[in-house]
């Protein structure tokens, strides 16, 4: 067995590999040096097929693809230095093109809520999250800022908006958080083909049961005091959601504040923050073999994005929430003021389950025993934006 950790950072991507012991690691990178890499993720069908979101305030969005596990990369459909048309007639230079189009949804959607309460035009900025299909390596979803969902069915060469998400009616009420307004989580339900969850800051959770054609909000039970109506249908700053693939109707959420749980596929939510020292944070993830074991990284509050008391601690619940234990063995327990971003935690599927997370201080930590103890794989990368783990045979 082999483990491959895909790390996106503020200044490039890194690939960390180890054998099943997860003690010795090889580090390759930086790939795309100097660029922000929001996310790198592999296809569950073809693990050597990787997709990466490469982005820059200067040069915009670039999509990259590797077909050999991250050794080499190319922009889909755009080999360097070749004529404009591929032999099969595919126009090139299209893989970076994300054009909003809600025409299929019936009416054009052009504005959303801005910070000052006015309406603001939708403007594409970057791809936050990539979610390869569970069944087809050529199909991949992209969650973007300003919030929208795109899909490619040709390995990332061209992208098409799933316009029912923005077009279902609540779009004008969506509002950016401090970090922007992006689709940051995409969950593809392995047991109910066609069911997709997305989460948006600050709009909330939305679910489709027809492969992305139609959508509806799934935020009942959420309470957000920063909103005029704290229990409104949309407007909640959901930071991340996660489920165990064997039980996708049970969804866990780290909200701006509050850890939430749904046992009915997002139809209703209840709080399970329990005895956490603070229920503010960004990532949440589920143990690979224990559907009731979940992990969060509490952050002091929404104005001080670092761990309480300068002690970096993951919290684990083995009861699906409410009862939490601190896991700090091997993590810095004084003078630590890093953050862990929403897409920067992942698990492997070895036994015992490995848990991984990256920090804004450039460390990537691994626990090869479900969180009981931790070791740093690397300590001095650029700020980590995302961590994904592949368990390879």
């Amino acid at each position, binding site marked *: 067995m082999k483990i491959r950790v895909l790390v996106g950072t503020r200044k490039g991507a890194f690939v960390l590999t180890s054998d099943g012991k997860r003690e010795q690691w090889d580090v390759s990178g930086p790939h795309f*040096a*100097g*660029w922000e890499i929001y996310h790198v993720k592999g296809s569950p069908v073809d693990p050597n097929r990787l997709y990466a979101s490469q982005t*820059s*305030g*200067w*040069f*915009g*969005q*670039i999509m990259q693809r590797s077909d050999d596990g991250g050794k080499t990369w190319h*922009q889909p459909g*755009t080999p*360097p*230095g070749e004529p*404009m048309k591929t032999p099969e007639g595919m126009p*090139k*230079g*299209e893989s*970076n*093109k994300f*054009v909003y189009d809600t025409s299929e949804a019936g009416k054009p959607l052009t504005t959303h809520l801005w910070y000052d309460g006015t309406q603001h035009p939708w403007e594409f900025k970057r791809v936050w999250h990539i979610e390869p299909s569970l069944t087809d390596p050529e199909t991949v979803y992209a969650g973007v800022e300003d919030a929208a969902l795109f899909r490619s069915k040709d390995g990332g060469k061209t992208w098409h908006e799933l316009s029912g998400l923005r077009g279902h009616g609540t779009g004008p009420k969506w509002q950016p958080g401090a970090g922007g307004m992006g689709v940051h989580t995409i969950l593809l339900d392995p047991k109910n083909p066609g069911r997709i969850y997305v989460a948006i800051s600050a709009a909330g959770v939305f679910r489709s049961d027809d492969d992305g054609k139609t959508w509806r909000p799934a935020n009942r039970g959420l309470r957000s005091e920063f909103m005029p109506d704290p229990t409104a249908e949309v407007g909640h700053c959901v930071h991340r959601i996660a489920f165990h693939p064997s039980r996708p109707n049970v969804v866990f959420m780290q909200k701006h504040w509050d850890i939430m749980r749904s046992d009915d596929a997002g139809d209703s939510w209840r709080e399970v923050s329990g005895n956490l020292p603070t229920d503010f944070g960004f990532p949440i993830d589920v143990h690979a073999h224990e559907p009731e074991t979940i992990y969060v990284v509490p952050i002091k509050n929404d104005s001080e994005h670092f761990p309480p008391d300068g002690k970096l601690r993951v919290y684990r619940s083995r009861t699906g929430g409410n009862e939490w234990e601190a896991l700090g063995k091997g993590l810095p327990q004084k003078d630590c003021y890093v953050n862990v971003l929403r897409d920067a935690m992942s698990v492997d599927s070895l036994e015992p389950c490995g848990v991984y997370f990256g920090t804004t201080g450039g460390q990537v930590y691994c626990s090869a025993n479900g969180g009981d103890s931790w070791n740093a794989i690397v300590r001095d990368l650029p700020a980590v934006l995302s961590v994904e783990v592949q368990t390879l045979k």
Partner: protein
Amino acid sequence: MVRVALPYHLRNLARVGNEVEVEVNGPVTQRSVLGALEARYPMLCGTIRDHVTQKRRPFLRFFACEQDLSHDSPDAPLPEAVAKGAEPYLVVGAIAGG
């Protein structure tokens, strides 16, 4: 041939050196030069001009012959020295960040 100088990250993206040469058919304007550049190096589509509006990305500037052409009409003729390849057309990234 028109010489085009690209910023560091775009050179890496296109896997080229400091300057590239592109053949422009018809009048040599900013639009025709950038169109020829994107046709020759399609991976640069969207990185200099917006895919849809074709407007210059905000943190880039266009210089030539010691002039800032960033706000000129994209269809205005470029200086003769650029059209003849004596001087390069410069795509410059704003200085910021690290």
